[in-house]
């Protein structure tokens, strides 16, 4: 065989140019994958990355547990008489808050990944262009699901009892994940727009803190000054928290659900195209 022989006992096996030649005698190229297939393949890539670096699940496990415990016992006694009482109100809200906060890591991972050589390869493939980004978000949707399940479990252990039962809880989490998937397009945009990981983190914090804290997650907005109510009542996170809270309590919060889905559509329709424009120009 025509091979390049390496020195004994070191390095990988030699290259076999003969079997290579046979492989290059290409059969017909398969048809290009569809948009969904390509997106799912990139989603699979995201899951493989979780498999190889499981530490990155820290932010969807330890962080949410900390959030539930911290706010339940910090505010519970003062705001609702007891932590268990407060938890009935807080859990859906803190769930929304934590998952929406976790979405910002999407921007960081896009930003660090995009500089790597593999992106040049992805961008020379004849595939549906947004599938790379959609793949990220599909992988992230899995992370959001893990975070939701972890928080719900902690909540149930601490005494949270959703009146909506399993159906209401599943509906609430599903809405939260759909919203977060759409909201993540904001971060993909920043991930492509900003030059460094640090600046992505910085900008994300600036956006995420007011957006999550200035909402109805912790308290009823009626106690707030008027100008603040104006912001809080029109904050997408408030709409989402009301919807999830209602669904989990066994109600049908039609307006809040409609608002949440409306925001979902806006995020995808505005930030999706902006992201893709930046991606194509990168």
């Amino acid at each position: 065989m025509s091979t390049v022989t390496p020195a004994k006992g070191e390095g990988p096996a030699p290259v076999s140019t003969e079997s290579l030649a046979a492989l290059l005698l290409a059969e017909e190229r398969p048809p290009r994958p569809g948009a969904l297939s390509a997106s799912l393949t990139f989603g699979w890539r995201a899951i493989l990355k979780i498999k190889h670096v499981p530490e990155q699940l820290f932010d969807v496990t330890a962080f949410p547990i900390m959030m539930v415990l911290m706010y339940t016992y910090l505010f519970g006694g003062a705001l609702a008489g007891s932590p268990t009482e407060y938890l009935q109100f807080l859990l859906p809200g803190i769930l929304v808050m934590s998952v929406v906060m976790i979405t910002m890591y999407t921007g960081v991972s896009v930003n660090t990944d995009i500089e790597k050589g593999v992106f040049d390869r992805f961008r020379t493939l004849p595939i549906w262009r947004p599938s790379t980004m959609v793949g990220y978000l599909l992988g992230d949707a899995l992370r959001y699901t893990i975070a939701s399940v972890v928080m719900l479990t902690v909540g149930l252990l601490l005494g949270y009892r959703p009146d909506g039962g399993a159906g209401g809880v599943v509906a609430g989490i599903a809405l939260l994940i759909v919203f977060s998937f759409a909201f993540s397009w904001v971060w993909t945009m920043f991930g492509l727009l900003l030059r460094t990981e640090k600046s992505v983190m910085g900008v994300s914090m600036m956006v995420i803190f007011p957006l999550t804290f200035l909402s109805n997650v912790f308290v009823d907005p009626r106690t707030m000054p008027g100008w603040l109510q104006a912001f809080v009542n029109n904050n997408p996170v408030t709409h989402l928290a009301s919807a999830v809270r209602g669904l989990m309590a066994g109600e049908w919060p039609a307006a809040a659900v409609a608002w949440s889905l409306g925001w979902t559509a806006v995020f995808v329709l505005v930030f999706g195209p902006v992201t893709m424009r930046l991606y194509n120009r990168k």
Partner: protein
Amino acid sequence: MSGQTSGLAIETAGLVKTFGETRAVDGVDLAVPAGTVYGVLGPNGAGKTTTVKMLATLLRPDGGRAQVFGHDVVREADEVRGRVSLTGQYASVDEDLTGAENLMLLGRLLGHGKAAARKRGDQLLAAFGLSEAAGKQVKQYSGGMRRRIDIAASILNTPDLLFLDEPTTGLDPRSRNQVWDIVRAVVAQGTTVLLTTQYLDEADQLASRIAVIDRGKVIAEGTKGELKASVGAGSVHLRLRDPAQRPQAEVVLRTVLDAEVKPEPDPVALTARVGAGAANGRGAAEQAARALAELARSGITVDNFSLGQPSLDEVFLALTGHDTGAQDTTGPHDGATGPHTKTIGPHDDTKEGVAA
């Protein structure tokens, strides 16, 4: 076989790309015949990678036009993408994934079913001698292995045109030879290869035609023979035992070789160009041998002798009258043609930032 054996794989006219004030690519015209290896030779910052990126649809040209198999790289980018593969300067694979996962991922993205993607991936890993490393993350691979998995990923679907951007920069000689073997096998099956390199030696080994590029412009283009004839066949490097004999050695060499002889900074070293001009080019080794014999007869002791191909620096000096300025990757090249006044330091051919 979808590769064409006639016609042009790449045709560009007046291709321009500017980054701010810098004209990274400044009016490049290329005509790459299909089914051949075409070498693009130049120092760092000459515009090689930028040119490749425009041809591979990664960058939008600011001027001129470029066609790949008759398809415009901007207007018909998708057509072009269906026929080319790119292996960048750094590994164009996902370093967090294993070799097998990378090939599976790309196989799926190219439209193969799961079973077909796995089969093709396994076959490629075997052919590239990477079966044992298939389950390891690519970040644990050596530089040579990375290059191989990278090229394997590029030929999952046999491309009509393969871009290899400095495929051997930073590799040890054994890995480099393996990459060369792979390139030869790829082109033997009808794929056109556009190879960029900083090494004349590499272009000489692989390419049938070579374009020399400097500061965003093609400064010479032709077959290997034409290019070499313009530069001379090579250089003789000598180290003498006794520095006092150097002036005498210089005289002997000049007489025998009828060529320019240059004393090196090292007091015992001498360099002479041999075979300058097409007529003498053939007999460089004989000339060198005669020179050695003549030195011995004159009682001059030679400790070390080598006959080398002209370096890229020498090619550049011959073609442009200035050195490569290889360290200068970011400086504003304004495209002026005046002499380049960079300090000539020891030339360092290794490039930073390769496969760390």
